[in-house]
């Protein structure tokens, strides 16, 4: 790959998704984009770049999606979900007692393990939530992960990562070597295609937002912008869950709107 091609490709990915391809990740461009070039019968990455310059919208999308990292698991890191159950939910049950509504957004949800973990957690708390309207919107830029998420079918390997065995037998049906999520739980989550750096939030007044293991791929400016947009889409006393590595100082949020409860795993106190 020539430096020009490299720059063109990483620039395209950054402009469209926010994902910064750092020096040590340049090999990923080669690894993940060569198959696309081959499939389209283009002459390697040079041919791919030529095709993209035309421009080719569908191809550009494919390139961006190929450069996303979709690694995820059920109840990832444990703590955020424990916190949701023991602290955040009781707080919101009190604060929203009048409206009896909860709006939840799982931003960058990948193949659905995160929003479905939230759904299972809420279902386990069904008694306390009786009569409440709860909505979970889950979004991602990558269409292939959304297709998988909507299907709610996971491999034996996937259901063993983070999912307690009691919840597996309770909420999944075994079909061959695959495990299918209970349709009632699947119906609790609405999946939508959404680009977090280019589109307005998929709603307003969210009470709980999960945006975990996404910001690590962005540069400082982009992180700040996304955090501000998230904050703007949230209720005053809403709670934002960021991933272990997605922690960011409270100032960019404060500059826009004060979020009292920013839960971060890396920095438990404050943000």
């Amino acid at each position, binding site marked *: 790959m020539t430096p020009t091609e490299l720059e063109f490709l990483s620039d395209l990915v950054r402009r469209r998704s926010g994902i910064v391809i750092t020096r040590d990740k340049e090999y990923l461009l080669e690894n993940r984009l060569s198959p696309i070039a081959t499939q389209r019968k283009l002459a390697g990455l040079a041919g791919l770049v030529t095709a993209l310059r035309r421009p080719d919208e569908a191809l550009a999308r494919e390139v961006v999606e190929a450069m996303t990292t979709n690694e995820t*698991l059920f109840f990832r890191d444990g703590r955020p979900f424990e916190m949701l159950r023991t602290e955040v939910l009781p707080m919101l049950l009190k604060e929203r007692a009048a409206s009896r509504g909860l709006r939840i957004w799982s931003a960058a949800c990948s193949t659905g393990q995160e929003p479905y973990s939230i759904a299972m957690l809420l279902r386990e708390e069904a008694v306390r939530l009786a009569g409440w309207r709860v909505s979970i919107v889950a979004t991602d830029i990558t269409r292939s992960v959304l297709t998988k998420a909507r299907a709610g079918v996971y491999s*034996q390997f996937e259901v*063993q*990562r983070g999912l307690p*065995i009691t919840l597996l037998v309770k909420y999944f049906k075994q079909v061959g070597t695959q495990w299918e999520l209970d349709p009632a739980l699947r119906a609790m989550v609405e999946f939508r295609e959404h680009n977090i750096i280019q589109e307005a939030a998929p709603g307003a007044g969210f009470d709980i937002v999960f945006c975990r293991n996404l910001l690590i791929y962005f540069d400082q400016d982009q992180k700040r912008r996304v955090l501000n947009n998230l904050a703007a889409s949230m209720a005053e006393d809403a709670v934002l869950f960021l991933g272990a590595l997605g922690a960011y100082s409270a100032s960019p949020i404060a500059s826009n709107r004060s979020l009292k409860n920013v839960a971060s795993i890396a920095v438990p106190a404050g943000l």
Partner: protein
Amino acid sequence: MKSCLVVDDSRVVRMVARRVLQDLAFDVYEATNGQEALISCLSRMPDVVLLDWNMPVMNGIDFLRALRSLPGGDEPVVVFCTTESDVAHIQQAIDLGANEYIMKPFDSEIIELKFTQVGLLG
């Protein structure tokens, strides 16, 4: 240091499990079937048992039943680790007091995640 009794009739599985668990700072010891495991538990209760299902002499589910009726036998965390992966088997294990269940094949991450879930790891 927490102790883990690995019960499996396959030497290879015991070896793999031992390596993973030692990396997670467990004091690991082994038994090749349920009966050996039970005798071992009578002299020393482990913190956790990693338990195969199908074994000669005494299988995993019979061991679990016997363990849970021993004095102090409700203490150890029991994690099944078996090729039996249908809901009927899993449900039976849970009903008899298994805390977690790993379907083979497994890798080190699955062991680590499951052990974290049942509170054995920080």
